[in-house]
C-alpha cells in the first residue's frame, strides 16, 4: 500500500503540474514537452489501476506518434504566440464556463461510481471487471469485449478514421503536370539493351544526333 500511495500522489502531482505548465509556458515547444510529460504520468496512473494495456497504448499512440507530430508542427511553424495571447481576458469567461462544466461532470461521475459502483453494460463476466479472478489478462479482456459486443462500434470508428485519412490525402495531394516525377518502376525495369548504345566511330569523326 505504502509504495502504491506514494507512486499515485507523485504521478498525480506531476500530471496536474505538467498540465498547468502546458497552458502557462511561454515557449510553445516547452508546452508540447510538458504535454508529453502529462501523457506519460497519466500512463503511469493507468498502470497503477491495473490497466497496463491502456497505459502502453496511451504511450504508443499519444506520446510516440501524436505528440511527435505536434512537436514537429510547433517547431516548424513560426506562429506569433504573443499575438494569440492578446484575447486572454475576452475568452476567460467562456473558457472558464467550459472548464467548470467539465469539472462538474467529472465530479458527478466520480461521485456516482464511488457510491453506486460502475455501471454494467452487459453481464458477461469479462466485461464486468472479473478478470482478476479468472486470470484473463488485460489485453485479452479488452479484445473479447471489443470484438464481440462492440464490434459494430469498433468497425464504425475504423471507417471514420479511414474517411479522415482519405480526406487528408485528397486535400494535400497535388500533381503539377509540369513537374517531372521519378518513376521507380521504369528505373528498375531499365536494361542494358534500352539504356546504352554502342556506336563505332572512325578516328576524327564525331557523333551527331
Amino acid at each position, binding site marked *: 500500500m505504502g509504495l502504491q500511495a506514494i507512486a499515485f500522489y507523485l504521478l498525480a502531482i506531476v500530471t496536474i503540474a505538467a498540465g498547468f505548465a502546458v497552458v502557462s509556458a511561454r515557449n510553445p*515547444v516547452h508546452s508540447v514537452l510538458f504535454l508529453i510529460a502529462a501523457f506519460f504520468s497519466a500512463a503511469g496512473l493507468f498502470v497503477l489501476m491495473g490497466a*497496463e*494495456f491502456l497505459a*502502453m*497504448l496511451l*504511450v504508443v499512440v499519444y506520446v*510516440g506518434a501524436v505528440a511527435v*507530430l505536434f512537436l514537429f508542427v510547433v517547431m516548424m511553424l513560426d506562429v506569433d504566440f504573443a499575438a494569440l495571447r492578446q484575447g486572454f481576458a475576452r475568452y476567460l469567461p467562456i473558457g472558464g464556463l467550459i472548464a467548470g462544466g467539465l469539472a462538474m461532470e467529472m465530479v458527478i461521475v466520480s461521485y456516482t461510481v464511488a457510491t453506486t459502483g460502475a455501471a454494467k453494460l452487459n453481464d458477461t463476466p469479462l466485461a464486468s471487471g472479473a478478470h482478476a479472478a479468472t486470470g484473463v*489478462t488485460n489485453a485479452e479482456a479488452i479484445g473479447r469485449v471489443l470484438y464481440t459486443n462492440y464490434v459494430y462500434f469498433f468497425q464504425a470508428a475504423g471507417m471514420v478514421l479511414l474517411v479522415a485519412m482519405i480526406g487528408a490525402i485528397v486535400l494535400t495531394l497535388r500533381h503539377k503536370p509540369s513537374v517531372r516525377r*521519378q518513376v521507380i518502376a521504369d528505373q528498375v525495369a531499365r536494361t542494358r539493351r534500352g539504356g546504352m548504345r554502342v556506336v563505332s566511330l572512325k578516328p576524327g569523326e564525331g557523333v551527331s544526333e
Partner: protein
Amino acid sequence: MNASFWGTPGGWTLLTVLQILAVMVWILLSLAFLLLADRKIWAGVQMRKGPNVVGPFGLLQSFADFGKFLLKEIVIPAGADKTVFLLAPLIAFTLGFGAWAVIPLAPGWVVSNINVGVLYLFAISSLGVYGIIMGGWASNSKYPFLGSLRSAAQMVSYEVSIGFVIVTVIILAGTLNLQQIVASQGGGFWNWYVFGGPGPLWTKLLTVIMLPMAGIFFISGLAETNRPPFDLPEAESELVAGYAVEYSSTPYLLFQIGEYANIVLICAMTSILFFGGWQAPFPTPFTAHWSPTAASFFGFMWFFAKIIFFFFLVAMAKAIVPRYRYDQLMRLGWKVFLPTSLVAVVVVAAWRVFGMGA
C-alpha cells in the same frame, strides 16, 4: 537476511535496484566491447587495423574514450535552450536502458516480467525520437535542426512497419509476455517464429511469411536506431553530424551510449521475437536435471551469442551498404515495408484462425 525481508517494500525496492544495476552494468560492459567490435569489423572490411593501441588488440580503447569524454569541457551554444539541451541526452540514455527492464535474459532472469512486455518495448522505442528531436531543436542551429526533423520523420515511418511485424509474432504466440514468447519457441531451431513457430511439420510453410518479416524487422530496426545505411539524421556529408553537431563531452557520450544501447536492444528483440531468445537451437532435455541457476546461465549464453551475431550483421551493414537517399528511405518504409507487413498480418491472422484450429 531471510525471504521475508525481500517481501517488505524496502527489501523489494532494494532487490529491484540491485537487479537493475546488474543488468545495466552488464550492458555497459558489453557495449564497451561491442563498440570496439563495431570499429574493428568496419576496419576489417576496409583492410585497416582499427583501434590497436590502447591495451592488447586495442581492447581497452572504449575505456580510454570514456575517460576522454568525461574530462572534456561541456560546451553549450550561446543561443541554446539550456534545460532542453541538457535534458535531451539524458532522455536518450534513460530510454535506451529503460527498455531492457522487460527483456528476458534467461529462464527466470528478467527485471520485470510484465504481461504487456512487447507493447512496453514498442512504447519505449517509439519514445526514442524525443532525445534526438529535443537535442536538435535546443541546439538552436541549422544542421542539428535539419537532422532532428529527418530523424523524427524517419522513426515515425519505420515504427509503423515494426509494429505490424511485431503483431504477426504476437498472433502466432497468442501472448504479449516476452518470457512466454521465448518459452514457446523451445525444443529446437525449427520451433522459432522465423520458421513459423512450434507445430507439426506442415506449419513450417509459414517460413515463407515469417522469414521476410524477420528481415523487415531487422532493417526497420536499423532505420529506427539511425544506423547506416539509414543514418540520415547524422549524415556527415550533408549535415556535419546532424543532431549531435553542438554536443560535446558527457552529453555527447550519453547520446552515443543511448544509441548503442538501442542498437543492441534491436538485436535482442530480433532474437527474442524470431530466433528463440535464450532457447538453444537444439532440444535440451539434459538441462532438466541441472540446477535452475546453471540452466539459466546456459540459456543466457545462447541469448548473448545471438545478440552478438545480430550485432555483427549491423556492423557489416554499416561497412558494406551505401547510405540511402532520403526519398528512397521514405519509399522503402511506406511503399514496400508497410504494405508487405500489412498483408502478412492478414495472412498470419487467417492462418491462425483457419490453419491452426485456434
